[in-house]
């Protein structure tokens, strides 16, 4: 059996999953078991939502990516994989991006759509935003300036005693080619095409990965607007709207009956000791180096000392 940790979950698998972080643990309740097998045609209980590639209820989820894989995820602790291709990298890709998030939803945990870096004081600065907002590019440009990667694309946020903590996902950064051209931290053998014929590449950062929870000192909400980089503090009341928008796979909230969980999670984060920032950047792709410097000057120097 292979053992991993991802998004704070202990994962035990009968097959090797190269993109996850290996981690030895004593088996306990809640461990996620990954097996290979035939995915059933339908759910055992009533289907609450049907989408082109999935159908689900609160406790069961079938995900079928044509010519790639089928997945059956149940009770927040079982993943059954049925590959439909010989290319296991493609199968695992869907495991990392969609299936793990499903398990979290079933465990009553909402993941957030964020990337992030570790600051010098061992806290985390997160970048939130929709696809293509520049989360990964901002993180990589800050890594060029000496910061360590924390997570890419998703993280779990939990509040304890008024402090917000983040747990990272898995040690892969997904980035477009133009971002890779500007990075100076990773060697060519750490970078691979993420999906056959896709446009994104994966950077493996197993050696720098932090599986432990770290306190979050700030969340930066990224958007494209205007001609210059503009950074401003955001009130927590305003952040509620942005946090809601940045729940990863927010389109599942209703179908999986997580409305109350959404309200509770966002309220707790908004009320925690945390700085929120609005960062607007020009649309041009080459604005990320300037953006990274501005974030270092105006955000990290304020909260990350």
């Amino acid at each position, binding site marked *: 059996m292979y053992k991993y940790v991802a998004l704070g979950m202990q994962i035990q698998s009968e097959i090797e999953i190269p993109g996850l972080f290996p981690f030895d643990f004593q088996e306990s309740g809640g461990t996620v078991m990954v097996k290979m097998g035939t995915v059933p045609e339908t759910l055992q209980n009533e289907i609450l939502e049907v989408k082109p590639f999935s159908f689900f209820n609160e406790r069961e989820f079938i995900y079928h990516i044509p010519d790639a894989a089928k997945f059956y995820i149940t009770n927040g602790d079982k993943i059954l994989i049925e590959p439909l291709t010989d290319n296991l990298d493609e199968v695992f890709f869907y495991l990392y991006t969609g299936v793990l998030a499903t398990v979290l939803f079933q465990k009553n945990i909402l993941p957030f759509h964020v990337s992030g870096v570790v600051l010098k004081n061992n806290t985390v600065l997160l970048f939130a935003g929709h696809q*293509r907002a520049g989360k990964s590019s901002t993180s990589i440009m800050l890594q060029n300036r000496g910061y360590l990667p924390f997570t890419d694309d998703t993280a779990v946020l939990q509040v304890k005693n008024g402090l917000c903590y983040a747990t990272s996902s898995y040690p892969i950064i997904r980035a477009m080619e133009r971002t890779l051209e500007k990075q100076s931290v990773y060697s060519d053998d750490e970078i691979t095409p993420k999906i056959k014929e896709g446009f*994104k590449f994966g950077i493996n950062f197993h050696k720098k990965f932090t599986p432990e929870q770290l306190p979050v000192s700030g969340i930066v909400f990224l958007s494209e607007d205007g001609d210059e980089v503009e950074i401003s503090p955001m009130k927590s009341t305003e952040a509620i709207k942005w946090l809601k928008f940045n729940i990863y796979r927010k389109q599942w909230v209703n179908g999986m009956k997580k409305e109350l969980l959404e309200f509770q999670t966002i309220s707790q984060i908004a009320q925690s000791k945390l700085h929120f920032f609005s960062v607007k950047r020009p649309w041009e792709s080459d604005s990320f180096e300037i953006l990274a410097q501005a974030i270092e000057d105006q955000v990290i120097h304020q909260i990350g000392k």
Partner: protein
Amino acid sequence: MENKKNIVWLASYPKSGNTWFRSFISALRNKGEVDINAISTEGIFSQKRGLEECLDLDADEIPVSKMDQFKRISFEHQSNTSAMKCFVKIHDLYSMSKIDHQPIVPQESTLAAIYFVRNPLDVTISMANHNGQTLDEAIAKVVCNEHAHLVHSEKHAQDQFQQYLGTWNMHVESWKNVSAFPVIFIRYEDMKMNPQDSFSQVLKQIEYEATEEEIQLALEASQFEKLKNQEVEFGFREKPKACKSFFNKGEVGQWKEHLNQVQINKIRQFNEPMMREFGYWEE
């Protein structure tokens, strides 16, 4: 399961009245209110975000070989799950996918298409403003370019998929040749000259029920100057970066003042058949 035919494609070469019609539909649905940043039609064919929420995938990570298939699946789902007509903007030239050789749009989910056609001489002027180009560039790179595209590089993260346009003539002709579903052609110049009649006619042809009063109210709300004023006051999120104002002038016959004879001749040379077909040749 049989597909529901709910989709009405709002098709056009860019800068031909498409956004005006979407604003009109939005006003019609909202009792004469329209917010250009919340147009209540059912999206844009090339936009990645709708597909991502529908399929639970990142559009930039879909293999190229599956891209067109997944787009069709996404809109089929939208059509099947909608209780009303879905108006979807599309700027793509109508064609078979180069990837899977199927039509680029899901024909089985299509009720009809409304094609907005505008004199390419005027399109050129609006296009130059839209793209931040000179008139000569708009002519050479877009209206007379057989390889013209919107969104140039598929390798860069942009909110829209690449869209193949071709020349103005190729674009109009491609939609004229569609036989799988009705395509209703409406000239921008007629929309401007007699909006009540032309908009009413189009609605009638797609069997969209609205009274003359409702249409009049929606037309007043979506007048060009009102949309332009909204853009000045609140901005317009569909405006490209290079464009100073999306709602520029919208006038008919601007080309007579702005284009020189060489430019006119070149546009006519590349676009003659459809210019003749739609009454722009003799002007």
